[in-house]
């Protein structure tokens, strides 16, 4: 008699049940929703203050600006905090509770269990970002309206990609003492770009899952996994900050330091985000490839340990 297959979807459902039971999955999703409210709310607040201070009555934003801002605000907190917690629960808590042994005595290949845990941790993070973006758009309709004069956004950070600003716009602006205006992308085009940005943000989340998975195999403790993963990212963040400061300094410019900063985990992910913001697909190298490489390297090492190590 052939043995019944073990569906991957079933394994994912089991992992989802664990984090849902802990309430953590809902917390991560609420975290995304919260950013969906904060993004448009923040822009609305800034505009309201601007109007109070005597800025013109022109409305330079619309709901998609709210959606994009919500995504921008959500991606690094979701990646840095919520996702690490999820990964800690999914890997390290199974070790600390002793339930990993109860799983490994079953006729399921360990790599499948590993893949289900990774898929659920990453998937919840991506859904959290999706919720931030969608709620940002919906809340944006209420607060910011369906349409706006977004041609004024050409010089704005984060959402400036929505406007095609002429190359000499800044010179013109300096001469005429007015903000540069550009040709805004169409509504559907901007929606497409936001969807693409969501895709690259999903890739930005992946190294966090891989690092937490690896640290969990080493420590087998939820607290140490969280602490160890944070240490990895803090050290990486320092390396990025020092490298980029040194690399950007006009007094003591060091090209190598700047390049190394770009090649840190944080640097590559920031580069990936920036490339996406500018709509510059060409800039996905090296950022996108490096982000993927970090994910594969940490993930492969974690999987190797997951497969090989004894459960005592």
């Amino acid at each position: 008699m052939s043995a019944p297959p073990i569906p991957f979807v079933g394994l994912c459902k089991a992992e989802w049940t664990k984090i849902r039971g802990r309430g953590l999955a809902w917390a991560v999703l609420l975290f995304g929703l919260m950013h969906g409210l904060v993004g448009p709310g923040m822009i609305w607040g800034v505009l309201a203050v601007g109007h109070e201070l005597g800025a013109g009555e022109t409305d330079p934003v619309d709901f998609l600006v709210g959606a994009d801002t919500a995504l921008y605000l959500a991606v690094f907190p979701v990646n840095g905090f919520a996702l690490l917690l999820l990964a800690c629960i999914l890997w390290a808590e199974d070790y600390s509770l002793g339930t990993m042994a109860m799983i490994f005595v079953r006729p399921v290949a360990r790599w499948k269990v590993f893949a289900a845990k990774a898929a659920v941790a990453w998937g919840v993070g991506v859904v959290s970002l999706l919720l931030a973006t969608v709620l940002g758009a919906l809340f944006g309709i209420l607060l910011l309206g369906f349409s706006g004069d977004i041609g004024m956004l050409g010089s704005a950070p984060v959402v400036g990609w929505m406007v095609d600003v002429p190359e000499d716009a800044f010179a013109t602006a300096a001469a005429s003492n007015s903000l540069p205006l550009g040709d805004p992308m169409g509504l559907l085009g901007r929606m497409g770009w936001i969807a693409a940005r969501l895709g690259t943000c999903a890739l930005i989340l992946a190294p966090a899952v891989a690092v937490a998975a690896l640290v969990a195999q080493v420590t087998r403790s939820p607290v140490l996994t969280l602490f160890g993963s944070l240490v990895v990212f803090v050290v990486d963040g320092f390396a990025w900050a020092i490298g980029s400061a040194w690399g950007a300094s006009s007094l003591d410019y060091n090209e190598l330091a700047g390049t190394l900063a770009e090649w840190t985990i944080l640097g590559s992910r920031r580069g990936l985000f920036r490339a996406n913001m500018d709509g510059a697909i060409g800039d996905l190298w090296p950022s996108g490839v490096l982000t993927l490489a970090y994910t594969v390297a940490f993930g492969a090492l974690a999987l190797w340990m997951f497969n090989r190590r004894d459960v005592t």
Partner: protein
Amino acid sequence: MRGLTRAYGSHVVVRDLELDVDPGDIYGFLGPNGAGKTTTMRMVLGLIHSDAGSVSIFGEADPVAARRHLGGIVEGPRFYPYLTGVANLRVFAAYSGGVTEERIQSLLEMVRLGERQTDPVKTYSLGMRQRLGVAQALLGAPKLLLLDEPMNGLDPAGVRELRDLILRLKEEEQLTVFISSHILKEIEGLCTRVGIIQDGRKVAEGSADELLEDGESLEDCFLRLTGGVHGGQIR
């Protein structure tokens, strides 16, 4: 098991161990503390790797395939305390494959947890957890059930309940049971065959009739074979 060996550093915990468990046996696996029982069971269950030797279960030598015939608990059942009893079984069922909701419900009834299935496991007594542990081990309808010290910490009523459950499983599910325990009186009344190890080596194997001398209890036999009694005194 053939030539099963495992060392931690220079300390050999299980050495060239050979055991045969026949289908339908309730096999008592005995040994003093540190004899290598749990390490052996962990190797059979695929939780730790052996340095040498092999385990074949109902003809399957491939570890993943062999585990289709296997259910077990090592060093006490472990659960997600914040999930209910039935949710825990559903989670573990996903890793077994092909387990129906009817099977889960029938196992909960079998171990008499049907009425408490929707309570979180953290509210269960030790005896209830042991019974839920047996239920989870049976999810994949195994042919062989491995139980490591299942009676540890149970009160006399719990021990009797578990013993009756094991005997019922042997009859109803045609199970072969491989069980380690320090409660030798229970093993004596439960097992059809016994294997005794010491320092990672097998020192005796056979039915009670084959191992016991005239009027000897299993406890006396165990102490005699493991050197636990010297000149009538326990060392």
